[in-house]
């Protein structure tokens, strides 16, 4: 249905824009703010700005490799 497609598309754009603004704010703008400002409560400590994308990337790559391995095993089983 057209409406479901539009809803999914809107959700995707919204999440991508929010992630981008949050990450930009976190990495670029926040170090200029004084350390006792209230806004620091809304953001995690700055080490996580690098840990979280790296962990997400590692998880993504491992899932990809698992998927490829499963597909290869299934094809080999079908041939034998």
């Amino acid at each position, binding site marked *: 249905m*057209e409406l479901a*497609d*539009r809803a*999914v*598309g*809107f*959700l*995707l*754009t*919204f*999440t*991508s*824009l929010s*992630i*981008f603004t949050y*990450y930009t704010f976190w*990495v*670029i703008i926040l*170090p*200029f703010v004084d350390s006792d400002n209230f806004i620091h409560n809304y953001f995690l400590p*700055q*080490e996580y*700005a*690098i840990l979280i*994308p*790296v962990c997400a*990337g590692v998880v993504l790559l491992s899932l990809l490799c698992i998927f490829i391995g499963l597909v290869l095993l299934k094809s080999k089983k079908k041939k034998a």
Partner: protein
Amino acid sequence: MLFTSFYSPASHWLCISFFLSCTVLLHLFKGFKWFEIKIRTPELVFIANPVKHVLKLLSLLVVISALWIGLLQASIIPQSHTWLLPIYFIVSLGCYGLFMVGVGLMRFPTCPQEALLLQQDIAEAKDFLKQKGVDVGSN
């Protein structure tokens, strides 16, 4: 840990100015419309001159990484900021891809009139084949 050891606003300003100069370097892509990498027809994705585009992208990446490594080696930017640039670019690339997919989904043309005409054509073809004796046999 990262971002906490010998951090100073001056070094951070240098990082920011570096990012901005990268956007200036993006003028290599002058004339290339970012929004044209979208699904025009449901089966094909068009980029004009793909080889030239790939070469431009690679040269841009090489220049940016050379400048970043140069800045790091000259100790203008502290070592704790090493991974700032690549991870930021990768995250923004992922966000850009997701954004393009979402926008393409929202603007997908469904062509309701053509769908109706197609249904009429299918009914016509079924009648024709039934007359000739071929059993179409769906539903």
